[in-house]
């Protein structure tokens, strides 16, 4: 029997498959696209190709598209799944997990190996992966390039508006004024870090135990800026991108 976790986010869908010993035997990321049900079918066929046919696994779905996965045995929210996955990945009981997702940012307080408290942004996309993507698009670069540019900034500018729509016009007027691209990029990444900082205030956290999960954990400059703003090193792990899916797979292994 295998255990599968699927984290269907607004931008990307992550999948983790475990064996009986709860070791990861397969993982992947695919774009979610506009049709969640189709994406679920795709994931199913990939599993099959890996020798994990439909009747040979139990699964838990999470993420915003969790209800659109017909074959999932159970749906559990991304808060619980990220928490569980992160506890396993970072192998420690007490820390604060920051997850910057496509359409929301979560701050999860972990105590004694389980979720104690959490904060999730309200409906707007300020401070999310989507925000970075839109801003990168406005600058005509991709997300990784945006962050690399930011690091080269000589004269920091700040983007004062948190709202994606207003921030975008701010960026456009900075471009119009001939501001250096790198400086604008810095302002954009900094605004994400500031937003996270203000969200951190809603849960109690220890600057010595900060962890990052989600799609942006492979962006070193963001980690650096976050650490600077939050007053403690924000650590991550190559697996952290899969925290939600991994947690879901672990939940699947506990299903009766």
């Amino acid at each position, binding site marked *: 029997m295998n255990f599968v976790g699927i984290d269907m986010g607004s931008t990307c869908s992550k999948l983790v498959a475990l064996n009986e010993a709860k070791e990861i035997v397969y993982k992947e990321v695919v774009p979610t696209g506009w049709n969640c049900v189709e994406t679920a079918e795709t994931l199913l066929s990939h599993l099959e190709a890996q020798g994990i046919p439909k009747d040979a696994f139990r699964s838990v779905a999470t993420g*915003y598209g969790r209800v659109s996965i017909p074959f999932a045995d159970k749906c*559990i*929210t*991304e*808060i*619980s799944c990220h928490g569980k996955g992160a506890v396993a990945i970072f192998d420690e009981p007490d820390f604060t997990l920051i997850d910057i997702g496509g359409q*929301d940012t979560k701050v999860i307080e972990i105590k004694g190996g*389980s*979720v*104690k*408290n*959490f904060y*999730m942004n*309200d*409906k707007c996309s300020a401070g999310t992966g989507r925000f970075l993507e839109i801003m990168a698009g406005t600058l005509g670069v991709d997300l990784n390039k945006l962050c690399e540019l930011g690091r080269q900034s000589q004269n920091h500018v700040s983007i004062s508006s948190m709202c994606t729509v207003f921030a975008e016009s701010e960026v456009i007027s900075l471009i119009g004024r001939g501001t250096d691209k790198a400086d604008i990029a810095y302002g954009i990444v900094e605004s994400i870090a500031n937003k996270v900082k203000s969200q951190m205030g809603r849960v109690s956290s220890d600057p010595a135990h900060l962890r990052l999960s989600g799609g942006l954990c492979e962006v070193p400059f963001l980690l650096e800026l976050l650490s600077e703003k939050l007053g403690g090193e924000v650590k991550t792990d190559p697996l952290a991108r899969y925290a939600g899916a991994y947690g879901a797979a672990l939940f699947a292994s506990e299903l009766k």
Partner: protein
Amino acid sequence: MSDLKLPEKFDEYAEGRKNGFLRVKAAKEAGKKVVGIFCTFTPVEVFDAAGLISVGLCGMSDETTADAERDLPKNLCPLIKASYGFALTEKCPYTYWSDLIVGETTCDGKKKMYELLGQLKDVYTMNLPQGPDRDYAKKMWAHEIRLLIDVVEKKFGIRVTDEQIREAAIKRNEFRRLKVELMELLSMDPAPISGYDMYKFLESMGFQFTVDDSIAAVKKLLGELKEQITSQPAAAGTGRKRILVTGCPIGGVLDKVVGSIEANGGQVVCYENCGGIKAARCFVDTDAEDIVEAIADAYLQIGCAVMDPNNRRKENIPELIKEFRVEGVVDATLQACHTYMIETYWIRKICEEAGVPYMSLETDYSQSDKGQIDTRIAAFIETI
């Protein structure tokens, strides 16, 4: 009486709305007068005593928000915008047919909205005191109630005696007692009714034309539920998480908040907000010599965030947590409601002290945050 004209757009209205208009129209044709109210502080005994119909006018949907925003700021509580919007667009039968609207100086948004509403309808605003425990607060509120009686007498050309008011208070007390009995049924596990249905029922009481109708309706439901409890032997606990809902009036976000709580493994066992237990337990001392003062006293017991200080709410919540064996508290606030938003600080603290998980949700009447709210509530219940 042919001077009762339906709104211009009446023919375009949906069936339910049309019926609402016709129902009130029929009452008015029978000679009844209608008073519209917005708040739990309104001393409805005065209207009962005067033989007037009183109905709640709080706007519960964002259907008219865009219209309201022509006159009111965007960044304002959705309840205030909706209430004004429904008056402006003539879409609420109760507002439309109100002969008099009575408001109070509660929050800033509401009282300033009443000034604008006064251009559309006959609005009278009572001055609600602050400092409910100051010695003059009760006197002032009693005086305000007397002024309201004058207004009602003049407007409708009637006399309202203290004895009529006392009788009205006795009836209202009975209604309160029955409502409390009904709400206390939710302390059972399993509860005999969903929190959602309970709220819908309590809300519908605001549209009954007489207290007698309300009393009859509560008795009927109580009877049915008790019957159900005795005929179906108590099953073991349901495992549903027992949730107390507090915060702003919740009618306009009921589906998003309570619907989601109960779809994700919770059961609302207590409503601390308006329409729930908080005001229902404020009984009037009907033996008091001065009945108006007794009414004033009872209403000032309401623990609402517009009051400063608002100790009642802080005292009540821990007691309710114990009484209803609450496992989680959801504090639902409406966007731009400063008073309740700021009080989330205290409620969070109180819950932490009581060792009960707490979540505050800020939302409005739109559907755009439905998914987000649902995830947050589901996650909250998972962590209990």
